[in-house]
Each structure stands twice: as C-alpha cells, then as structure tokens.
C-alpha cells in the first residue's frame, strides 16, 4: 500500500531537482534536459492524481505533455544547433550579447 503522497513528494523532489539543474548546468543541452526532468515530474504527479481519483483525465494530460515535450525538444534542439553553429560554444554563459 503506497500512499499517493509518496508519489507526489517524489514528483516534487524531481521537479525541484529540475529547477536546481536549470540554474546549475551551463551546457545548454543539459539545461534543456533539466526542463525535461521537470516535465517528467509533472507527469508523475498527473498519473498519481488520476490514479487517486480513478479518472482518465490525468493520463490524457500526460499524453499531451509528452507530445508538447517532443515538440519543444524538436524546436529547442534546432535552436541549440543554430547557436552552436554560430557561436562554436554550448556554454550558456557565453550567450550575453544583449544586456542592461
């Protein structure tokens, strides 16, 4: 018997780790992975809730989230490639032409 809240806490932890990862990582690609991690955390929460309510809606949401994640991934990686191509660097901190 596993209380739902365990799942929730797990998802919270994962989400938090995603957030931390976002600020911690420098490599654009891995930063993007951190975002994916956050999305996964969200999915976990959805599934857990749908399980709790015996609803399918949660699962549907997960489905959509995955699709959106895929779309984002496609576009995001394209952007990353453009950047890498023009800058020869994947360090996010080098990307600072515009400031103030």
């Amino acid at each position, binding site marked *: 018997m596993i209380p739902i809240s365990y799942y929730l806490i797990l998802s919270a932890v994962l989400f938090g780790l995603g*957030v931390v990862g*976002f*600020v911690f990582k420098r490599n654009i690609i891995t930063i993007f992975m951190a975002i994916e991690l956050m999305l996964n955390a969200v999915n976990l929460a959805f599934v857990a809730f749908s399980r709790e309510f015996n609803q399918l809606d949660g699962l549907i949401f997960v489905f959509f989230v995955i699709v959106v994640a895929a779309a984002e991934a496609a576009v995001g990686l394209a952007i990353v490639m453009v950047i890498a191509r023009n800058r020869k660097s994947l360090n*996010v*901190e080098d*990307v*600072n032409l*515009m*400031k*103030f």
Partner: protein
Amino acid sequence: MFILNHLWIILALPLAGSMLTLLAGRHWPQKYVNLSSVGFVVLAFLSYCELAREFFSLTAAHIPLPPADYFTWMTAGNFRVDFALQVDQLTIVMLGVVTFVGMLIHIYSVGYMAHEEGYYRFFAEMNLFMFFMLTLVMASNLVLLFVGWEGVGLCSYLLISFFFQKKSAADAGKKAFITTRIGDFGFTIGILMAFWTFGSIDYKTMFAAAANMPVEGMHQWGVLTSICLLLLAGAVGKSAQLPLYVWLPDAMEGPTPVSALIHAATMVTAGVYMVARMNVLFSHAPAAMLAVAIIGGATALYAATIGLAQNDIKKVLAYSTISQLGYMFLACGVGAYAAGIFHLMTHAFFKALLFLAAGSVIHAMGGQQDMQYMGGLRKKIPWTFGTMLVATLAISGAPLFAGFFSKDEILFDAYAGANANPILYGVGLFAALLTACYMFRLIFLTFYGKPRYDEHHVHVHESPKVMLVPLVILAILSVIGGWFVLPTYWGGKDYFKGFLDPVFSGSTELAAKLHPSWTEPPHSLELTMAAIAVGVAFVGFLIAWYLYIRKPALPKKLANASGPVYTLLLNKYYVDELYGAVIIRPLIWISRNVLWKVIDVGLIDGTVNGVAFLSRESGNGLRRMQSGNTRSYAAWVIVGAVAVTVFFVWMVR
C-alpha cells in the same frame, strides 16, 4: 457757474496739452510746442481765475459744495472709488498756487530750455505734472489723491532724469521715486486702514465718521493714530522730511525749472496739503500731531545746518526747501494748519523765485553751479540779483515781506497756540536764524566780492525777457504775498485764516476744547514775538555779513578750526552713505548671494535636479538586473516563484 459745474476742464487742459505735445511735439518747431504746452497751462490758470470768481460769488449756504462725481473708477465688493473732484477753500488756495506758479515757470522754461534737446519731452512731462498735481489737489477721496500723489512722483522721476544720459541724473530720478515709494508704502497701508475703519475713502464720509470718534489720548495708541502716522509716512516721503529727505538734494540733477516747480513750489508741499486736508483725523490723534511737529521741527533745523555748508547754489536752495517744509509740518503739528498752508503759499512764491533766479544765474554763468566760482555778479545781472535779493529777504523773514508773516505766524502758534510747545518754538527760532544766515551767505557769495571765475571764458549775460518777467512777477508776490494778514498787527482779522476757517474750524475748536486752560493770547504778545523773530533773523544776517563780506578769509579758518563738524555738515551727516551701508547694499548682497544663488539655484532647483539625477541612477541600478546571463535570469524566475509560493502558502493563509 460754468467751471464750477465742469471742474474737469481744469484737469483736462494740462492733460490735453501734455498728450498733444507728447504725441505730436517730436517733430514740431519749438513755438508750436510752446503754444500747445504753455498755452494750455495759461488756459488752465485763466479757468482757475474764473473758478475762483465763481467760488467767491457763492453764498455760504452752498459751501461746502458736493463733489462732482464723473465716473466710478474702481468698484468691487463693498469697495468703491469714484473719480470725483471737489472744490473748497483749501483747494482754491492750492489751485491758485499750482496753476499760477506753474504757469510762470512754464513761461520761464521757454527761455531756459530753449537749447536743450528733448524740448517737447520736457514740456509734455511738465504739463503731465500739472495734471496730476491738480488731480491731487482737487481729489475728493483718498485714493484719487493717491493717484495724483503717485502721478506727480512719476513726473518728478521723469523730469529729474531728464538728462538721462548722465548717470547721476538717472540715479537721482530712481532714488527719488523709490524713496517716495517707501513713504507711499505707509500711505497705502494708511488708506487700507482708513477704508477698513470708515468703510469708505470719501473725504466726506471719513471726516464725518472721524469727527464722531473719541479723541485718542497721547498715550493710548488707537486706530486714528495709526492711520495718521501711516499717512504721515507718505507725507514724510513726498515732502522730503526726516528721515526720507535724501532724494530731494539729488533731485537737483533735474533742470532748474523742474526744481522750482516740483521740488520747491508744488509737489513737495503735497505732504503738507495732505496733512492739512486730513486735519480732522490728525486733531483726533494728538500723538500723531506731536509726531508731525517733531519731525517738522527736527527737519527744519537739520536741513538748515546742512544748508550752511553747501557750495552748490541749488543744493543750498534744496536744503532750505527741506527746512522750510519742516516749518510747515511744524505748523500743522501744533495745529496751526492755516499758518502752514499760508507758509506753503508764500514759500511757493519766494522759493520758486529763488530757484528761477538761481537758474538765471546758472544760465548766465553757462552752467556753473558752484558758488565758489561765482561772486561779484551784482552788476552783471542786476535783474536777477534784485529779484533774488527780494526772495532772500522774504525767506529770511524781513518785515513786511511775505515770508515774515507766514513764518511769524507759525512761530507764534508754536509758542502760544492751543497745543503750543516751547521747545519746538525754540527750534523754529534757531532755524530762522540759520535760514537768514545761509541765505545771505548765498547772496554774498554769488553777487558780492570779487569774481572767482575766469572772466575770459565765461561771458556773464542777463537772461532773456521771457525768463525775467516771471522773476519780476514772483518778486512782487514775494513782497505782497503775505499782506492778507497785515490787519492782525493792529488787531484786525486774519483774512487768510478766516478764509480757510471752514476747513479747519473743526480741528481748532477741538483743540480749544482739549485745552480748556488755554486762552487767546494778548495782542501785545503777537508784536513782541514778531520783534523777536525779526531780531533773530537779523542776527543771522549779521553773521553772514561778518563772515562773507567783512572777513572773507574767516570761513576757511573756521572750517579748518571746526574740522569734523564742518566736514560732517559738508557731507550732509553722511546719511546717504549710512543708508547705502545699512540698507541698500546688504539687501542687494543678500538677494544675490543668498536668495538667488543659494536658495533658488542651489536649494530649490538643486532639489529638482537632484531628484532627476537620483531616478536616473536608480535606473542605472535597475538595468543591472538585466545582466544578459540566462542563468541569472533563471535565478530571478526562481526568486519570483519562491516569493509567490511562500507568500501564498505562508502569508495569505
């Protein structure tokens, strides 16, 4: 009754003259200018004569005449000023002096100013002056009087700085206007207070109200006292009394006719006129009366002392004017309004004469004003000398001359009048001595002794007829001008006083009521007083004679001997310098270096610019937030997220 019903004509004439001359005169030949300006003044005088005739023909029942109300000049709320003129005995006298002397001086100026540029300007301004002076005299309420009051001030400003390219002239004009303005400040407040007290500034209403008010004792400072003192401030400024007299000597920068008309005969006497006009108020405020008397006496003495040491012929006359005005104030101060006005009239004659004669001298000397470079002119300009001598006798109070009667009357009232004051009498007497002294000093220095000027360069010549005629006429008047009162010496009635009585009766009766102990002095006293006065004047004459005819070298020695005293007198007690050091320069310094530089630019504007600067700086600070680094941005987002969630979860609930 034509003029009586159309008083405005007397005003309109000089005004028309001035406007005409001012607008058209620029390109006119001089004779047109004379026609338009002098002509109108002559007309004004004639219409005055007609007015006087009509006035005398009136039966006592019709006097006082109601003021002729032409239009409402100001009205707002319960405040209302009408442009209303009035005629009564006092006005008649003043009008006479103004129009007549004015006319003579205009005529004189035709000759005197002939060679000056801005001829038309001069006459236009003179006419304008006449207009305002007449307004002042005929006004039937305080504000209208103030109109004339300021107007003549303006004209005096314009005429003093007539030679505006001379710095001294420009300064003198400004000084005159501003100094009188300081007095007018008091005057204005006085008017405000009067309106506040009486609810109106019409003479009729004011005097009626004041007459029913209790007399304020010497030590209880009431509203009337305040009003009177405030008005007095104005008078002090206008009539060059202590401590605001400083502008008058400088005013001699103006052309001599101006000095004669404005700064001797008419404008400067406005203060006296005003006090006399307000006699009802003053007699209800003994404290103010005393103030008037003291100021008058002090000024009379003070100015006379300075007069002793001056070398500029016009300056001497200027100080003597101040001193004589002091006499008039003294008179008013002791309640002898009639005497004051009487002296005002005679003084107008002989002082105008003195100035004109002096002008003729200067004219003859080609602009030289310093008596140290004159002397022995007696033969060369006999007419001038003769008339000037007459005037001098008159002013020093030689028996049977105009000045004798008026001055004698003042001294008499000071000694034996209702509110007599021996000290003031003494002062007056001493001043009389000094007067005789410095006047004869002037005569001796100018006309006697050896010429002290370079006779090859200066070609002394008698002035043209147009200048001499007025001199002669005035000379005659300086002799006979005082004979109204002759009968008093054999116990007859005083016609002048009698004529003015309706105006002053209220005050005189009141004075009598206030001093029940006082009784009409015996006739014998009158004669003795006169004798004393003459004696004193004669002593003055003797001193002058001894110093300047008998022992011409003595004055120098005396001067050196008396050292500081003499320099003090020569430099007019350094009063100008004092004012400069104590008031004017500090004020300017503070205004420039504190108010403007520090407060305005530094403090206020500094704050404004400071605020601008600060906001720009905070802008610079805030834009640092946009470091351009994505990780920092992420950090900001997290900050926001944490803030929001923490706020929601722990603050709100």
